[in-house]
């Protein structure tokens, strides 16, 4: 069902902003030429109209709370309600970011514990919570690598090595940090091509960015060799924590030889994805990069005869820091949600996260393979996600990955990640997460089989999908050519 734009409910004079002051105070302290004459283009609607409109809009979304959402590389696990409730406690949400430390001891204490727990799960020496998304964590990481080399007078190290399977943010980040990107190929078994790596290492190498398990859904078995080679060449190793969920409590990036890591709290630590953010891309480093961590960081001051005091460490204490990345201290409320999640699960709960995420992925891969689907790396164990290639079906029936994705929507499943990594043709990257039941995974397999069978029988029928969603396939070309980015009725 179509829902009109909020503006289409608007009628002039239907105001009654019950949530604003009941009179308009004079703007008498300001010069007239600084003021605006009128403000048009905002809706005039009642509270009930607003509530109905946005409730109806929400009902047009697929979400974790309503659908299985196996979007590979995004870790769409259940977001516990209690995490939100704690973060929305009045004392937490009303705390001003510039309020004095003594009126923020509760919040700061939680943040200090969060830093400590994140050190433990990554094997790094120190954590900064300030980056506001994975991509910002990546920026912080590469900026720290640059700062490290520059501080040593090593001005020629400007190359960042990135495997061809990497997420698009990796090369984009390297560019944002003023570095040059060098791509290296992946072997047929999914591991990095070591010889190709040797070939590009040199005095110009700033570092390498790796995701492990990789975006191909397999653990990089030669990680220790890679670390040794990169370090020998004078470069540093960056760990993209997109897939940390797979190895939580099984191996530590710090032990693998990584110098810097970012963690997507909205993946592994279950903070909400919110329709596309806010995320959180906290960073961790070993001793080498410690001086360069972005500020602020939460510190602890020991006080005699009393409780410890939690304090902000800023540029004053950390003169070599790469600096600030947000106006205050990043997505604090998201950090609180992650703190609740980590304290709830505890050490054993976290081991179960990787255990059941891996069990679900390997089970779903095995079931799909048994049903005749083609795994991209059939000889490998899946990590917490895996890739199915539909290239044979696409060739035989003309039903491609996009068609499969849309047909899944009609069967009540959010589609897996499509056409990523670009390395594998016609691919689906599938990540079930640990919070799904076996029965849900079985239903997904049934849907995949049903679509495949229909594709063989009547491909045009599959290509019509989706039929049950509020709209059918959209004209993306028209969207980009005839730009309509704002309501024109103003």
């Amino acid at each position: 069902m179509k829902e009109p734009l909020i503006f289409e409910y608007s009628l002039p004079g239907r105001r009654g902003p019950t949530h604003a002051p009941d009179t308009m105070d004079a703007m008498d302290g300001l010069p007239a030429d600084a003021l605006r004459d009128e403000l048009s283009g905002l809706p005039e609607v009642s509270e009930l109209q607003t509530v109905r409109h946005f409730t109806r809009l929400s009902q047009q979304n697929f979400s974790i709370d309503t659908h299985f959402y196996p979007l590979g590389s995004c870790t769409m696990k259940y977001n516990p309600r209690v995490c939100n409730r704690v973060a929305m406690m009045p004392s937490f949400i009303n705390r001003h970011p510039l309020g004095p430390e003594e009126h923020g001891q509760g919040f700061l204490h939680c943040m200090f514990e969060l830093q400590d727990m994140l050190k433990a799960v990554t094997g790094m020496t120190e954590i900064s919570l300030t980056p506001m998304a994975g991509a910002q964590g990546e920026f912080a990481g590469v900026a720290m690598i640059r700062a490290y080399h520059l501080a040593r007078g090593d001005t020629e190290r400007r190359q960042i090595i990135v495997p061809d399977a990497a997420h698009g943010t990796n090369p984009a980040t390297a560019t944002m940090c003023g570095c040059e990107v060098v791509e290296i190929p992946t072997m047929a078994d999914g591991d990095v091509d070591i010889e190709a790596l040797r070939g590009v290492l040199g005095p110009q190498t700033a570092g390498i960015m790796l995701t492990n398990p990789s975006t191909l859904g397999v653990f990089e078995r030669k990680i220790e060799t890679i670390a040794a080679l990169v370090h020998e060449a004078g470069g540093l190793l960056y760990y993209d924590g997109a897939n940390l969920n797979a190895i939580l409590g099984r191996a530590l990036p710090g032990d693998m030889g990584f110098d810097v890591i970012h963690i997507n709290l909205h993946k592994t630590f279950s903070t909400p994805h919110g329709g596309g953010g806010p995320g959180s891309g906290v960073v961790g480093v070993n001793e080498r990069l410690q001086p360069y961590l972005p500020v602020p960081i939460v510190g602890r001051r020991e006080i005699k005869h009393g409780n410890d005091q939690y304090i902000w460490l800023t540029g004053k204490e950390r003169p070599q820091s790469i600096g600030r990345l947000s106006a205050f201290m990043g997505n604090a409320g998201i950090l609180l949600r992650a703190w609740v999640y980590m304290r709830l699960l505890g050490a054993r709960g976290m081991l179960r996260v990787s255990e059941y995420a891996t069990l679900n992925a390997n089970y779903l891969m095995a079931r799909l393979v048994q049903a005749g689907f083609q795994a991209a790396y059939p000889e490998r164990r899946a990590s917490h996600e895996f890739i199915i290639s539909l290239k044979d079906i696409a060739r035989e029936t003309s039903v491609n990955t996009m068609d499969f994705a849309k047909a899944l929507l009609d069967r009540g499943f959010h589609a897996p990640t499509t056409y990523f990594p670009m390395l594998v043709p016609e691919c689906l990257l599938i990540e079930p997460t640990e919070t799904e039941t076996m029965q849900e995974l079985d239903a997904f397999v049934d849907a995949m089989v049903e679509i495949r069978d229909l594709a063989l029988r009547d491909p045009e029928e599959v290509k019509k999908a989706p039929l049950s969603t509020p709209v059918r396939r959209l004209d993306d070309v028209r969207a980009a050519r005839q730009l309509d980015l704002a309501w024109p009725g103003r």
Partner: protein
Amino acid sequence: MPFIPHTNDDVAAMLDIIGAQSTEELFQEIPASLRITELAGVPEGMSEADISRLAQQRAAHDGGVVSFIGAGAYEHYIPAAVWDLATRGEFYSAYTPYQAEASQGTLQLVYEYQSMMVALTGLDVSNASLYDGATAFAEACLMAVRANRKSQSRRVVTTRAMHPAYRSVAQTILSNQGIELVELPIRNGTTDLDALAALEGEDFAAVCIQQPGFLGTIEAVDEMTDQAHAANRLVIAVCNPLALAVLKPPGSWGEAGADIACGEGQPLGIPLSSGGPYFGYMTCRKSLVRQMPGRIVGRTVDVDGTPGFTLTLQAREQHIRRSKATSNICTNQGLMVTAATIHMSLLGAEGLRRTAARCHANTRSLAAKLAQLDGVSIAFEQYFHEAVICLDQPVAPVLEALSAHGILGGYDLSDDYPELGNAMLVCATDARSEQEIETYVTCMRDVLAGVQAV
């Protein structure tokens, strides 16, 4: 086992299908030298009841104060419906709308958000938001350097009248790309126009103007905009969006209007929450849209001709262009934009204008009352909803004494603006009652008397 739904029978059946003896076996590709079997340093888990109790105890340390601090984050009344709706699972637990047909709720909402930001700023197009005001400002500088075809310069003019943290964040982000920020001094709390005039003949990609400035003051935006355009510089407006309900929108500055507007979206229904999550907004002229960073939602039609919404202009973005993208940004601040769109719908233009005007009136009232006390004065006469208050003694001990009375009296400017002397920035929004303002003034009188008595 929190959130793990598997029964023992499930696990046995699943391992059987996989062909593994145990879940342990599934990790066999991790080299033995790297395997760990426990997480030292992480405490044992807690029940939901216990974590709730612990959180209550922690939160109890932080509440019970009345804040008169602004400085880039403002306490406004947020209608109950805003977060009730925004935290519906269908918004809260959805992701970036890659599958447009299954994400029309989020997509239509973002289109409505973009429309509202266009209305507030008076520019043509908006993106779906950036991380916060400071990073939006940094991205605007990058965008201006890319977009200004009349200038080859990698320098941008900024001003000490702008939020110090914004300048600092921009420095972090821009310095890595060799872009230089040239900072103008202030005079009477606003950008020194003579210093700006002295840059005549020099090549700059853009001039940044914050309105109102960090010190609450009003910049000569028309004059600055025209001057910048005459020198082939783009104009980046940095504005509090609530202030734009009453102040002249960037699109109307000077003869031609500003080129890019950006800022902190927090005043539009986002709680203070220790500094985040907030959202940065960005709007611009239509001709610059292909240089804009971040997600953008467009309206189009489906195969049946039904109108619908989709992410568009994705050729700018990292997942397509990789190292040649306009920015590495991947997400927006979707949940915050959801709340802001609901907030703006509930308040409407009139509600936003009244709220903005009440903030102005409350701060004027507070400043006037404080200035009646001995040793207290107002530094600058014209301001929106923050005033610089000067004391005849150092600010820090006074704020500390007020804080002991449960009043957060303002933001100490001594570190960021030593040239202003013993100065602090005070803000009384619509969330402050007349009585709270009175209490502050009374407390301040007592504190000043007490401090002087020592």
